[in-house]
């Protein structure tokens, strides 16, 4: 009887750990943080011998002994730092004993499906602001602010829309940056903006894979070579897609 209870508890721990890891990895946390969180949760229950292998596309988690090893596949990744923060604080609460495993599991189940993102309109506004401000930061003049604003916003909304339409992220990025280039070219031709280069650089900024670059560096530093290299490859492909989109416009005109 006692043995059965213990087995149940181990199952519960594995489930909680894997769910926490899955949410964090899907939301764009570093590999190091995912592994660390899972081990901390396990350790707080008294299981000090746990092993995990985390790559951007899957998590393998195992607790020493005869218990089965479990595996989760991560198929799509987004950027949602809020979820990372929430799961991080839940794991802190588990470690300090404030929250039971069962409550944590329930709460994380809710978070997994919840949509915590800012409304799309606010995201697009933010992207336009990024476009306009970066145009100014790269020494553009005031007359380039509005064109940067507009093409940054339009480019980002195109990216969101195309990404819903086709699941291939790189293609969506390519199309979005192509439209940015086209729009900026149009603005300069009709005399609405002055410097084509500044407008394009500024409005492409919202698409730049900043999180991937930072995560790749941090993962490589922490010794997670597989994840670091694959995230670096993803960042490179994204940058390449953006570059190609602009290059097509430049070579057309």
């Amino acid at each position, binding site marked *: 009887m006692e043995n059965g209870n213990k087995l149940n508890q181990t199952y519960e721990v594995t489930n909680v750990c894997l769910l926490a890891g899955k949410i964090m990895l899907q939301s*764009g*946390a*570093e590999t190091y*943080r995912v592994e660390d969180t899972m081990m901390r949760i396990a350790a707080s229950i008294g299981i000090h011998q746990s092993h995990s292998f985390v790559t951007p596309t899957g998590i393998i988690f195992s607790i020493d002994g005869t218990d089965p090893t479990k595996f989760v596949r991560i198929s799509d990744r987004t*950027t*949602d*730092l*809020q*979820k*990372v*923060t929430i799961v*991080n*604080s839940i794991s*802190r609460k588990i470690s300090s004993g404030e929250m039971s495993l069962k409550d944590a599991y329930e709460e994380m189940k809710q978070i997994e499906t919840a949509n*915590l*993102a*800012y409304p799309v309109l*606010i*995201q697009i*506004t*933010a*992207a336009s*602001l*990024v476009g306009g*401000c*970066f145009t*100014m*930061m*790269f020494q553009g003049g005031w007359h380039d602010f509005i064109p940067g604003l507009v093409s940054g916003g339009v480019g*980002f909304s195109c990216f969101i829309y195309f990404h819903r339409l086709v699941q291939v992220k790189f293609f969506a990025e390519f199309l979005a940056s192509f439209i940015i280039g086209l729009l900026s070219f149009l603005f300069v031709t009709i005399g609405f903006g002055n410097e084509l*280069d500044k407008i*394009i*650089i500024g409005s*492409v*900024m*919202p698409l*730049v894979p*900043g*999180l991937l*670059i*930072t*995560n790749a*560096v*941090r993962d490589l*530093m922490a010794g997670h070579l597989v994840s670091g290299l694959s995230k670096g490859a993803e960042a490179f492909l994204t*940058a390449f897609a953006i*570059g190609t989109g*602009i*290059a097509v416009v*430049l*070579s057309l005109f």
Partner: protein
Amino acid sequence: MILQLITSFIASTAFGIIFNAPRKSLLKCGFTGMVGWVLYVWLVHNQVDSVLATLVAAFVVAIFSQIFAKVYKTPIIIFSVSGIIPLVPGGLAYDAMRNFVENDYNSAIQYAAKAFMISGAIAIGLVFSEVINQMIRKFR
């Protein structure tokens, strides 16, 4: 310079929104980005090489992110991502690609090499601050 301060603050905060950072940390994201960018611009303005300037700015961004992460008990990437973004050599990459398209491979390679160096500088800046952070933890 004031214009640079304001625009970099707004841009970094807006990036926080795109990455869906928690509402409470948005202003700190903006602050980190502002510090990094203004430091970079000031260094370049004073004839410091842009690679070195990027390294210093990335280092300072990472230090600030670590302080914020410790004080507010949140994951560090929230702050470091929005701080690093302005330093990414988008302009150089653009110039490189433009020259590639125009079949001017010599200048294209030059720009690309520079962009690569600056990306490396960002990485090393992040690494340095991480190392210092770990050393402080060890000595305690």
